[in-house]
């Protein structure tokens, strides 16, 4: 990536600018407990939780570790774990 003077940026810049680096805690999903209610997907303020092959998976390139998904999960299937960097 080369920056343009004046912080001019082409559209869709977050495709290249990953914003997940702020995260301190990372959500860890227990797929055994998951009932596929999709509340985590709906509540995620970054829109970065999606189903992949039937399982809900957070996109860690953009997940900020805000814990909203863990808080909303009715089955306590999501645990926030301190991420070692």
């Amino acid at each position, binding site marked *: 990536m080369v*920056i*343009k*003077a*004046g*912080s*001019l*940026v*082409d*559209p869709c*810049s977050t495709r290249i*600018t990953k*914003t997940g*680096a702020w995260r301190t805690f990372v959500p860890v999903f227990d797929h055994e407990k998951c009932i596929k209610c999709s509340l985590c997907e709906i509540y995620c303020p970054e829109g970065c939780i999606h189903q992949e092959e039937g399982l809900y998976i957070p996109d860690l390139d953009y997940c900020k570790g805000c814990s909203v998904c863990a808080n909303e999960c009715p089955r306590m299937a999501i645990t926030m774990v301190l991420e070692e960097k």
Partner: protein
Amino acid sequence: MSNNTANMKVVEGSYAVAHAVMCCRPDVISAYPITPQTHIVENLSQMVANGELDSEFLTVDSEFSALSVLVGVCAAGGRGYSSTTSQGLALMYEVLYNVSGLRMPLVMNVANRAMGAPLNIWNDQQDSIGARDVGWIQIYAENVQEAVDATLQAYKIAEDREIRTPVMVCMDGFVLTHVYEPVELLDKEKAREFLPDFKPEHILDPARPMTFGAFADPSTYTEFRYQQFEAQLKALSKIEEVARQFEESFGRYYGGLLDGYFLDDAEIVIVTLGSVVGTVKDAIDAMRSEGKKVGLLKIRSYRPFPVQALRKALKDAAVIAVMEKDVAIGGEAGLVTDLKAAFYSSSSRTPIIGFAAGLGGRDITIKDIRKIVEKAEAARKGDLSEFEFLALRKEIL
């Protein structure tokens, strides 16, 4: 400086500058009136109303809005102009950084005035010197002619694609804005040849969407600041180049980055900026006739600060005395601090002494300048007073 006196007119400084702005053909003028800048924008408003100038003149609710509007103007590909002073410049502070950070080549005349409190409408340079680090280029004018010429030059410097940095053309409030003196007004056609239409590389265009002023996280913010830093360093040669191009077109030149007066054999050099330069020249004439080897170095470009040019110009001085119309409360003052910093890494150990003078419109007289020279002579003998307020009225303290 070779003026063709046949083309000279006796006009008010503010009119002369407004006329220069007209010759620069801004698409939008956005300003809020404030003493002593008012006559500049009043004249521009009149020119637009008379149909002499095809610009949109926006009357806004504050200086903050005045400059914010121009951010939009620049992003849309227009040439923008504003002018302000003192509290008005302070109210623009947040936007000053946005303009320079967005690399918008705006030009603004600052009619230098003291900062309140205490309330004071008279001239000093606390306002723009206090804004020395906001990323704008700052050029200081000695007289009305220089303010006129620097305004046209400023757009050429600012809009250069290698530079893309806004410029403040600083002229002392009242002393230059309200004085009537002979000026050669710019020729419109010659100005057009000198300054072509503004054609920015990137504009806000729905056909080719782009984000202006994107968020920059810790991984890129430093690099954006570095780009601004580099652009100002490049401006050092650009300012000189544009001053020389101006000389070719208009026949006037008074230094690009700085200028000297009796500098060659000067033992004591007074360094200053703005309209007080004229008084210093008169004082030097008087002292030279008495055999005193006093010279002057005038700073034209304060930002970028011309470190190498200053080291070269001042290499033979025995004492450097800086006189400036600002004070860095709790430190010393802008120019003297910068000058000391410029010399610290050089081999020179010339004493540098500083004086805050002419604050809040107090006249700086020839007697005051003689006092500075006396202090410089004492410093040469080892009695070094690093920084002081010139002509301080101790009797009222």
